[in-house]
């Protein structure tokens, strides 16, 4: 399986990269870890004229704190998230989600930026980013703009990213200290995309839910932010009747495809089960 021929570029800075992408036109593609793009190229489902390899651009990598936010460079790998003390202390849901992505070899190379920018509904990080209220830094020749993860996904492989733009960083408001979190993913085997998965971040106050956010993976053409489901839970003690109503609200917004992972009705039900499990585990972790 040999990809179609292309020209290869290795810029050293973001400005050089976006200038190249702007000049080369719409058939040029940025290359980060390549673990979504290269398989597509081998199948000749993607035949870019040019690849602009982002890996030599130091400013695109790394995890740092910026005031109340965590800013993660786009070419930071899933493996680096697993080993990051800042991630572990401030937003451990990122490591929990990274650990269920693909397999060890893929996590060493696959990047957070690629995972969120690809637009594949099977990617795990987009729903986590919607859950966390993250913002993507998009850079093109004209400069930088910022788009909320909750506004970024338009359809399968369709996002707010314009040709010539790259995701340079992911900005995550650090959840309140003592928050509970969980990413629950049902998959058939290691390396598989989710049959359904749910991300939950919540805070508790005096035994009641103070705030709650829920994201869902691979149960529609885009990742989903289950806003209504989360709102139902705020103020509750997470009693079973209220959780059941929230789960029903989460299930109601799913539009999964029937595929080898199961019929649509099953996957909707599994989105509910993952939501309930994630809520339970998040509560057990909340202080």
């Amino acid at each position, binding site marked *: *399986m*040999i*990809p*179609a*021929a*292309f*020209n*290869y570029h*290795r810029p050293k800075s973001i400005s050089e990269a976006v200038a190249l992408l702007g000049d080369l036109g719409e058939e040029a593609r940025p*290359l980060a870890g*390549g*673990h979504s793009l*290269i*398989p597509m*190229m*081998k199948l000749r489902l993607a035949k870019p004229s040019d*690849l602009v*390899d982002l*890996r030599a651009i130091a400013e695109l990598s790394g995890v740092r704190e910026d005031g109340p936010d965590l800013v993660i460079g786009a070419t930071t790998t899933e*493996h680096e998230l697993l080993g990051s003390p800042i991630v572990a202390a401030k937003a451990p849901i990122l490591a929990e989600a990274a650990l269920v992505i*693909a*397999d*060890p*070899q*893929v996590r*060493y*190379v696959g990047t957070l930026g690629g995972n969120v920018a690809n637009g594949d509904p099977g990617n795990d990080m987009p729903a986590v980013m919607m859950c966390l209220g993250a913002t993507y830094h998009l850079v093109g020749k004209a400069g930088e703009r910022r788009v909320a993860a909750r506004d970024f996904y338009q359809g399968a492989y369709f996002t707010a990213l314009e040709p010539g733009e790259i995701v340079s960083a992911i900005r995550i408001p650090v959840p309140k200290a003592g928050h509970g979190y969980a990413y629950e993913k049902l998959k058939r085997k*290691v*390396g598989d995309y989710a049959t359904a998965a749910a991300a939950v971040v919540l805070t508790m106050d005096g035994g009641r839910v103070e705030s709650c956010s829920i994201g869902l993976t691979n149960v529609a053409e885009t990742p989903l932010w289950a806003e209504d489901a989360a709102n139902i839970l705020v103020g509750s003690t997470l009693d079973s009747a209220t959780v059941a109503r929230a789960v029903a609200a989460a299930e109601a917004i799913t539009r999964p495809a029937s595929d080898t992972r199961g019929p649509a009705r099953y996957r909707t039900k599994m989105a509910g089960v993952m939501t309930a499990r994630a809520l339970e585990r998040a509560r057990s972790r909340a202080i």
Partner: protein
Amino acid sequence: MAKIPVSMTVNGKPVLRWVEPRTLLIHFLRDDLGLTGPHIGCETTHCGACTVDLDGKSVKSCTMFAAQAEGASVMTIEGLTAPGGTLHALQEGFREMHGLQCGFCTPGMIMRAYRLLQENPHPSEEEIRFGISGNLCRCTGYQNIVRAIQYAAGKLSGVEFKEAAE
């Protein structure tokens, strides 16, 4: 398409070749360098037979362009054996514990296990199984692969692995 120069260190030796940009690292290693230890299995990032060590990471060399490894230090199964031919503890473990049947997955399994033991010299059985979850053995000989890695972990830390292969 014009060829580009790609240079890296492979098994301790610097190499430079002019290749097409679309040359995958697995083809660079096998066809340009003649290192046929890393195998081409599924070609779809699932099976791990092409796994090599690259700058301290296990990577699937079928899913990386050679150009992306520019400047990197790469080790294949050929680089694991000591110069005099002495087997690495992992190679010895796979022999002693019957960690291979057809042997097709073995170079990838061993290179993945090599990095796993670098990061975690005393893995539990569960950690070994999770650590090699990106490598498939179609003979389904996982039990003895796990034992082989346990044998190597023991040998590398000076503790003998007692359980015999079945």
